[in-house]
Each structure stands twice: as C-alpha cells, then as structure tokens.
C-alpha cells in the first residue's frame, strides 16, 4: 500500500463463440476508463478462450521506500477504519439468481469505485497499517493485519457498513463457498452471542474490489472518517480498535 500505478496490462478469458464481442468491448472499455482514472497507462494484454469470462489487470507502479504501508504496523489503542461497505460476494450470488436488484446495483457501484481517493486521504494521516479487503473477507484481512502486527482487535459488527440487501441475502443462504472456507480457516475469531449468523457470514464474505482497512491513532479517527466521506468514500466508518498485544485474536461483538 502507498504506491502509485504506472502501467496496466489486461488479462482476459472469454467464451468467444458463446458471448457477443460487444460484451468483451464493454469489459475492456470499462477497464480502460478505470486505468485512466487511476492515472496509469494501458500497455496491452493477453486474451484466452475460456468457458467463463474473467478479467483482471497486471499493474506495475512505484512507491517511495519510506512511504510503503504494510499490514504489520497496527498499534495498541488504534482505531480501525473501513472505507467501503461489505457484501459484494453475497450480492453477486443474488445477481446469479435474479434477486435483490437494488443491492446488486449498489454492489456494482461500490466495486467500480477506485480506492485511489481514499489512498490520497490517507497520506495526510499517521497511518500505522493498511490493507485492502478482498477474497479473505473483512475478518480474513483484519486477521492478517492483527497477526502481522502482533495485536488483538475488537470489531463492533453493528458499526460495519453493509451493502443494501446484503443481510437479507445472507439470511437466505446466498453465501459463496469462499465465505465458508474463510470461516473454516479463521477459527481463532470469537463472536459475541448477539452476532447473528447472517452477519457473521457477511464478515467472512469474499469481497471483490473491497475498501481499505486502516489502523491509525484513535484521536485521528473522526477526522479521517469525515475526510474520506468528503473524498467520495461515503460508507467510511470506524468499525473497531486495537485492544492489546496478542497473536492476532479478533473478538467480534
């Protein structure tokens, strides 16, 4: 974390015979727009015929050695800030079942939002540790941060921003296999009995293009939340804190 992107290469798999070329065009031009927005340059790519469309980017950038942000610096007393709502995995399942159209639209909008602006806001604060929330879910990436930092965290599930319809979709069992795999791996996380199963599922839900999880001194929490909101990261919330030294234990209440 903390770097600036320079170049990006497309990596695409696509069912050439089954889907219209217009679909591929839409994917590539959407990617192109986001690369330009991020301030990088598109320098080509690779395409392979496959049963299911997949799209990704290989990005190269630079970072000043003294400005690299890792997930290993969280300190006792820090506040934990999350910059996007969670639930994209569950809502992607809902999309495949033609359910929860409002939530699906909100998830798409959230995923299309770059973390660039949140990253720029971060530069003005004393950020101790930072990571982005992706396939291991909020708790998976929080655990990586807490164990790498040698601390124990408390997360207040009632404060964690959820995408619209995500809680209802999780109650209906639209939970991706990855969320169960994350839960299975993250057995060291303890839940207060008041945290319902659907909320637990969302905390383990794999995210696509999730937000940033930031650990910084608690006295800067209110200020960074306001600054993030002004910069367009409207869901930004303080979701918990670093409690004490430890081996990565997380308590969710």
């Amino acid at each position, binding site marked *: 974390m903390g770097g600036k992107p320079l170049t990006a290469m497309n990596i695409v798999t696509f069912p050439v015979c089954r889907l219209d070329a217009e679909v591929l065009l839409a994917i590539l031009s959407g990617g192109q727009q986001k690369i330009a927005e991020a301030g990088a340059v598109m320098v080509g790519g690779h395409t392979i015929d496959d049963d299911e469309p997949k799209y990704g980017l290989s990005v190269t950038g630079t970072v000043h050695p003294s400005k690299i942000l890792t997930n290993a610096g969280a300190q006792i007393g820090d506040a934990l800030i999350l910059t996007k709502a969670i639930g994209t995995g569950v809502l992607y*399942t809902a999309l*495949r*079942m033609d359910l929860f159209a409002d939530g699906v639209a909100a998830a798409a909008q959230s995923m299309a939002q770059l973390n660039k602006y949140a990253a720029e806001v971060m530069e003005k604060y004393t950020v101790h540790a930072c990571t982005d929330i992706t396939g291991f879910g909020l708790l998976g990436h929080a655990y990586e941060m807490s164990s790498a930092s040698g601390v124990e965290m408390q997360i207040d599930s009632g404060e964690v921003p959820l995408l619209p319809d995500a809680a209802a979709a999780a*109650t*209906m*069992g*639209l*939970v*991706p*296999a990855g*969320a*169960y*795999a994350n839960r299975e791996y993250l057995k060291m996380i303890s839940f207060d*009995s*008041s945290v*319902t*199963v659907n909320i637990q599922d969302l905390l383990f839900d794999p995210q696509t293009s999730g937000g940033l999880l930031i650990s910084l001194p608690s006295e800067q929490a209110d200020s960074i939340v306001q600054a993030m909101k002004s910069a367009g990261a409207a869901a930004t919330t303080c979701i918990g804190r670093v409690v004490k030294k430890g081996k990565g234990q997380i308590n969710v209440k």
Partner: protein
Amino acid sequence: MSNEKEQNNTILDCRGLACPQPVILTKKALDQLPESLTVIVDNAAAKENVAKFATAGGYGVSIEETGGLYQVRLLAGTNVGRATASMTATELSATDERPVFLISKDTLGQGSDTLGAILIKSFFVSLLETNPLPKTIMLINSGVYLAVQESPVLSAMQELSGRGVNILVCGTCLDYFELKEKLAVGSVTNMYSILSELTGSRRAITL
C-alpha cells in the same frame, strides 16, 4: 445433476456442485412448488445454504448425513410463505400444522428444579430435531430467562430462530426481572400477541 420424481418427493442431486449452484438449483426446483424436495449435496457449505434458503422461504427443513453426503429434505406442508396472496390469515393459520409453545418457567416440569434445569436443556436439544419445527415459542414469567445472554439453551434458541421459529418474549416479564438489556434472542411481545398466537393455533402446547 438429475431431477427425478419419486411419489410426491422431488429429488435434486447436487453432488459435485459448489456454492452457489445448489442454492440456485433449489430455487428453480421450488419455483415448481413441489410437495416436498430432497436436495442431495456433498459439502457443508451447500447444506447450510440450501437449509437457510428453504427456511427463509418458510419450508420445514430436516437434514440427514450419511458418508459425507447430506440429504436436505424440504417440506412444503409447513410453508406459509408459499401460500397464495388470496388466502386469509385465518386460512393460513388453519393450514399451519406447526405447533406453538407457551413456556412459563426456565425449568421443565414440577418437583425438582435441579432436575427441571437438566430437562429443559434436553427438551431444547430434542426440539431442534422435531419436524415440523414450532411456528412460535413464547416465553413468559421466569421462562424469559431462556432468552437472555446467560441462558443455558441460548445456542439452541438461536438455531431455532435462525431456522425460522418465531421467538416472542414477554416484555412485562423482562421488565419485572430487569432483563431487558440482556435479551439475546427473539423479540419483545405483549399479552395480546401471545393470546392471538394461542387462539389462532390448532396445536398450542403449554409447558
């Protein structure tokens, strides 16, 4: 995947399929409104998702595990959500075979309360295995202790709630015992709602 009819029970074979495929196929199968549906899955995630989906739709769910395979049986007889919009509330409750429980103590039975505390735990563990599950569990007097954070049967209560059982807790009783802050499962209710549940049910059981 095969989809075959055996008597009135439709079987949906989802072996080898990862989430969310089994739950998508379950939705398609339930759209045909079968009397009952047995979904066969081979992983715990799919089992949980299919059970959650069916419960949210008002189906009764029972699960049997044999050699790494799960047979998730969904019963439409308990399915309120599936009833047509034209049915009145009375018709709905008249066709609902699910029992309603009124529990008025935090122990089970008369005599020894020590024994009663053991029996109530065993009662709730067994209740989880019943089919259909209760429609509603109502807690009054010291029964409200079963729904607070220190409840000896909290996990069973939460599982029941998660599987669609409506848990109603007497508000006056919570106030009396000063337990309102500690309520961990279910929703607060009043005597009118409790009476409506009792008189509207064909299978009301008082403990």
